[in-house]
């Protein structure tokens, strides 16, 4: 087993635990740089992973670290997207300025939602954000000369500093760079007093207050920062989908975003990114499975005779072509995660790591107490 040899407090302030961990992240970054060459047909899906990663960070700050669960984050995504398009295409601002303004505007919206939310806790807050999302969606539909209303609005390709980044690979790198920057900023906040104050509010408001944390201020900050990240994500998202319409930013998208942080593992940045990979790539996997699974089942059935094979193919094919299949699978996975892996993919990852570093002495009970705690925590 490796152990950490700490000789200065500075070591605890680093972004990485030690050189080994840092090298793994460098390797990961190198891998992401060559990935478009390896799997060119998935580059578009991978940019969506990065955009969802931004959304995941945003929601992780609010739900995972500050303990304020929001079901209105699709609305912030929408505000960011429409604002960015308005600033670049209607006002003709440069790309970076437009993104910054979109983030600032979304942050302001976040603070506005956060202010009344200060008096609400738990499920009431969640419902308030849900109401906000519905109102904003209505605004998108009605405010036609800015948003294009129900007819929607086409989005141009991004041009940053005069360099067109509309190509799939260029856009992939743009999203990767923005995500890496956002991860760095968020990690900085989390190792500073602000991040600690957020965690304190999540775990015990009364103790946080007695230690001098201004609850209203830090909750508003969490809302503002979370919304700002969402605004940046929205700007990229607008380019990604190429056409904005109000029904994209529906409550279902909010639920999907929340699913991302729950499945990834609440309370860790890794979790947000794991969740993003999962939520962005699951539809891809489902659509691939749609084509492949009936054929396989058919082949297995064919072992019993040709008629059985054809029947098996038709039945499974009809099943996988059902329109509600995708949300159904999402819901099922969410339920299974809450039941069996409340710490999410990141929790599973920690267990795997521990299993191999302790091998053959790993004991399952190591995580049991936290698991029992987290389960009741969800209900509050």
């Amino acid at each position: 087993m490796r152990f950490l040899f700490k000789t200065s407090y500075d070591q605890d302030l680093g972004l990485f635990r030690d050189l080994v961990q840092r090298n793994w992240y460098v390797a990961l970054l190198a891998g992401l740089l060559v990935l478009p060459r390896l799997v060119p047909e998935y580059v578009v899906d991978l940019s969506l992973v990065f955009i969802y990663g931004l959304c995941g960070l945003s929601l992780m700050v609010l739900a995972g670290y500050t303990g304020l669960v929001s079901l209105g984050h699709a609305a912030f995504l929408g505000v960011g997207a429409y604002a960015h398009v308005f600033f670049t295409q209607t006002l003709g601002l440069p790309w970076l300025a437009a993104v910054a303004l979109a983030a600032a505007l979304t942050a302001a919206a976040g603070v506005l939602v956060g202010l009344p939310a200060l008096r609400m806790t738990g499920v009431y807050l969640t419902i308030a954000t849900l109401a906000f999302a519905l109102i904003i969606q209505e605004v998108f539909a009605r405010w036609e000369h800015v948003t294009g209303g129900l007819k929607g609005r086409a989005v141009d390709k991004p041009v940053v500093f005069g360099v067109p980044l509309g190509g799939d690979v260029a856009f992939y790198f743009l999203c990767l760079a923005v995500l890496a920057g956002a991860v760095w900023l968020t990690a900085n906040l989390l190792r500073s007093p602000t991040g600690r104050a957020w965690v304190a509010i999540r775990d015990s408001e009364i103790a946080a207050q007695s230690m001098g944390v201004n609850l209203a201020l830090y909750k508003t900050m969490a809302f503002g920062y979370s919304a700002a990240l969402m605004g940046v994500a929205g700007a990229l998202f607008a380019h990604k989908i190429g056409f904005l319409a109000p029904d994209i930013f529906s409550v279902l998208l909010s639920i999907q975003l929340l699913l991302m942080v729950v499945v990834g593992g609440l309370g860790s940045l890794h979790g947000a990114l794991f969740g993003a990979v999962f939520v962005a790539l699951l539809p891809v996997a489902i659509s691939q499975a749609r084509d492949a699974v009936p054929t396989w089942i058919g082949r297995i059935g064919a072992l019993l005779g040709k008629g059985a094979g054809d029947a098996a193919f038709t039945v499974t094919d009809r099943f996988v072509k059902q329109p509600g299949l995708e949300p159904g699978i999402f819901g099922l996975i969410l339920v299974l995660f809450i039941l069996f892996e409340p710490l999410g993919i990141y929790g599973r990852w920690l267990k795997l790591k521990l299993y191999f570093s302790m091998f053959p002495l790993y004991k399952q009970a190591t995580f049991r107490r936290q698991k029992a705690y987290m389960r009741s925590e969800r209900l509050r």
Partner: protein
Amino acid sequence: MSLLVAEGLGINFGGIRALDGVSFAVEPGEVFTIIGPNGAGKTTIFNLISRIYDPHQGRVTFAGEEITRVPPHQIARRGIARTFQNIELFQHATVLQNLLLGRHAHRRTRFAEELLFLPRARRHELAHREAVERVIDFLDLQAHRDSLIANLPYGVRKVVEMGRALCMAPRLLLLDEPSSGLSVEETEDMAFWIQDIRTLLDITVLMVEHDMSLVSAVSDRVLALNYGRAIALGTAREVQEHPDVITAYLGGS
């Protein structure tokens, strides 16, 4: 001049008069203990000082400044730290993070500095860390530095919570039943720590406590409450022998 003065504190919860005109003064450098049967209003006094409740009458003065209407998060900045009867630690954080939060009242960095983690933010973090390490050494918490609170035994959590309050470097420390749930040995350690907090760290202690051996070991003065009224004030022995106190605890005709 007294460090903390409470004058005629009164508060009702519905029809129940939880505190009824309680007055006392805590002198700098003393250990002042409040005792009383269950429901006497001891913790309510703490909650009034840390501004979780608004008093219906009376006022609280700290270091010459009235704090009866100060917002609750400002109390820490004025130098009053507290612990809770039922341990209010941050469960999913490490001991170190909990203690670092105790430094929150000393935060001097701005949001933007933290966002970019500029050298100034790093310097301040290191300074906070050193202050925290001094408390860790003081309370012998070295072995638990990186443990999650959820994995710690009750006795250690109690010490960590006191440590978090000490990290604030307060002028007045409010301890709400520091020995509840502790074993005899742990209570003994607690008594020594309370004494050291007073003499070595120069922090005035206001404490609510039931364990009379701990109370008489460390307290300079004791205030006895019953049904929201002060019934006796004096040294531990004087209060213990006061007839009203005996009646309050044991009943009588």
